[in-house]
C-alpha cells in the first residue's frame, strides 16, 4: 500500500523538488531566499500530505495538509520576514562553513542517509526514496543549525528538521494521529514565536543576532 502511494510518480517528483528546495537553502547566502525556499519546501510537503490524504482517504490528513500549508508555508515565513524587516538585520548570512563545502556536505549527508535507511531494512523499493529524503532533511537541518551564524538560521534549521520528521512520519505511517500532529504544529508555531521574541532580545542586547555573540555570556 505504502509503495503504491509513495512510489507514485507525483509524490516522487514532489520529494525531488523538496530536495531541490533544501539545497536552495544550503546554497543561498540571502536570508530572504532561504525563507522563501523554506516556504516552497513546506508548500511541497503540504502537497505530499494532500496526495497521501487523497489516496488513503484519511480525512484528518487533509487537515494536516491544510495546516502545513497555512502555518509552515505562509505564517512562519511571514513571521520570519517580519523579524528580518523589524530588526533590520543584514541580509547576508554569515557562515562557519562556506557555501560550496556546505553543499558538498549536504550531498554527502544524503548519501549517508540513504545508506542508513538501507541498512535498517525497512525500505521497500519505493518509499525508500521518501525515507531517505526525510532522513537527509533532518541531518541537513541540523547541519544548517551548526554552520550558520544568524539566530534566524538556527530556527530555520530546526524547521527543516521538523519538515523532515513530518515527511518521515507520512511515508511510514501516513501521518501521526491528528491530535499529535496538531500538538506539533502548535509547538512549532509557539517555538517560532518564542524564538522570534528571543531574537529580538538577542538583538537588543548585542545589537546583532549573530549567535557567536552568545559566547560572551560565559562567566
Amino acid at each position, binding site marked *: 500500500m505504502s509503495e503504491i502511494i509513495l512510489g507514485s510518480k507525483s509524490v516522487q517528483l514532489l520529494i525531488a523538488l523538496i530536495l531541490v528546495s533544501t539545497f*536552495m537553502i544550503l546554497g543561498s547566502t540571502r536570508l530572504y531566499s532561504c525563507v522563501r525556499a523554506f516556504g516552497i519546501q513546506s508548500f511541497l510537503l503540504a502537497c505530499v500530505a494532500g496526495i497521501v490524504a487523497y489516496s488513503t482517504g484519511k480525512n484528518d490528513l487533509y487537515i494536516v495538509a491544510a495546516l502545513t500549508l497555512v502555518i509552515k508555508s505562509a505564517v512562519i515565513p511571514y513571521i520570519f520576514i517580519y523579524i528580518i524587516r523589524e530588526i533590520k538585520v543584514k541580509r547576508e548570512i554569515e557562515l562557519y562553513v562556506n*557555501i560550496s563545502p556546505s553543499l558538498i556536505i549536504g550531498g554527502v549527508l544524503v548519501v549517508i542517509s540513504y545508506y542508513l535507511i538501507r541498512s535498517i531494512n525497512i525500505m521497500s523499493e519505493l518509499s525508500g526514496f521518501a525515507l531517505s529524503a526525510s532522513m537527509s532533511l533532518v541531518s541537513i537541518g541540523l547541519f544548517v543549525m551548526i554552520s550558520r551564524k544568524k539566530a534566524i538560521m538556527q530556527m530555520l534549521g530546526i524547521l527543516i528538521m521538523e519538515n523532515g520528521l513530518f515527511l518521515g512520519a507520512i511515508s511510514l505511517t501516513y501521518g501521526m494521529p491528528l491530535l499529535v500532529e496538531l500538538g506539533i504544529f502548535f509547538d512549532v508555531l509557539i517555538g517560532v514565536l518564542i524564538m522570534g521574541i528571543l531574537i529580538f532580545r538577542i538583538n537588543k542586547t548585542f545589537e546583532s543576532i549573530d549567535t557567536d555573540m552568545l559566547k560572551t555570556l560565559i562567566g
Partner: protein
Amino acid sequence: MIKQIAIVILQIFIIIALAPLLGGIIKKIKAFFQLRKGPGVFQPYYDIAKLLQKDSVVSQNVSWLFHAAPIISFAAVLTAGLLIPIFITEMPFGFAGDLIAVVYLFALARFFIALASLDAGSSFGGMGGSREMFVASLVEPALMLSIFAVALNVGSTNLSYISQTVSAMGLDALSPYQILAFAALFIIAIAETGRIPIDNPATHLELTMIHEAMILEYSGKQLAIVELGAMMKQLLVFSLLANIFFPWGIATGAGLAAIFIALLVYAVKIVILGATMAMVETSTAKWRLFRLPELLSVSLMLSFLAIVSFIIVKGG
C-alpha cells in the same frame, strides 16, 4: 538519401535562421516583465545584417588565429547542431557523436574565441577570455554529472536515442532524477548562454562582462559571425534542454506531417524555455564572479543528487 539531405539542410536552416529570433524573443519577454516596450523580436536580424554590411577594423597586433577563430568556432557550433535532435530523432549525422561530443564541440568553439581574445593584446580581451574559461571549468563537472544522470535513466548518451526513449515513455519519463538533472542543467544553461546571474548579455561595461569582453576586438563581419555563433549556441543549448527532458512531440520518422507538428511543438518549447530564462533574468541580479562557484556547486550537487536518487529509487 534525398530525405536525409533534406533533413540536414532543414536542420541547418532552422539553427542559423531561428537563432537570432530566440534572442529577440527573450529580449521582448524580458522587456514585458520589466514593463518596457523593448525592441522588436526581429532586432537581432537587423543587427547582424547591419554588421555584415560593415567593414572590419582589426588590431595591428593580431595573427592569423584572430581571423581563423570566428570561422572555427562557428563551424564547431553548427557541427554540434547536427548532433542535437531539433525536430527529428533520426538525424543523418547522429552517428558522428554523442552528448559528450557535443559538450566538447562547444568547448572547441569557446577555446578558439578565448584564444583570439588574447591575440589583440588588450587587457579586456584577456580578462574576458580568462573569465569565460573560468566559468566553463566551473560548469564542466556539473554538466558531466547531469549527462551521467540522463544517461543512467535512458542507458545511453546517444542523443537521438535519449529523445526517442524519453518521448516514448510519455509522462512516465518524469521522475525525480529527471527533475533534479533538469534543474542542474538549467543552471548550466544559464552559464553556457551567458545570462544573468552569470553574465550580463546586455552590458557594455568592460569590467563586468565576460563574453562581450572576450569579443571586444571583433568588428564588422567578423563580429557578425561571432554573434551569430553565440546565438546559435544559445538555441542549441535550449534545444538540448527541451529535447532531452521534454522531447514529446518530436518526429521519430521522416513523415511530413510529423515533422510539421514537431517543428511547431519545438517552437513552443523553446519559447517557454526562453520565457523562463527571461523570468530568471528579470528577477535576479548579476552575481559577483567569485560567487559563481557557489551557484554552480548547487548545480553540481543537484546533478549528483540526480544520480543518488536514481540509485535510491531503483533500489539497491
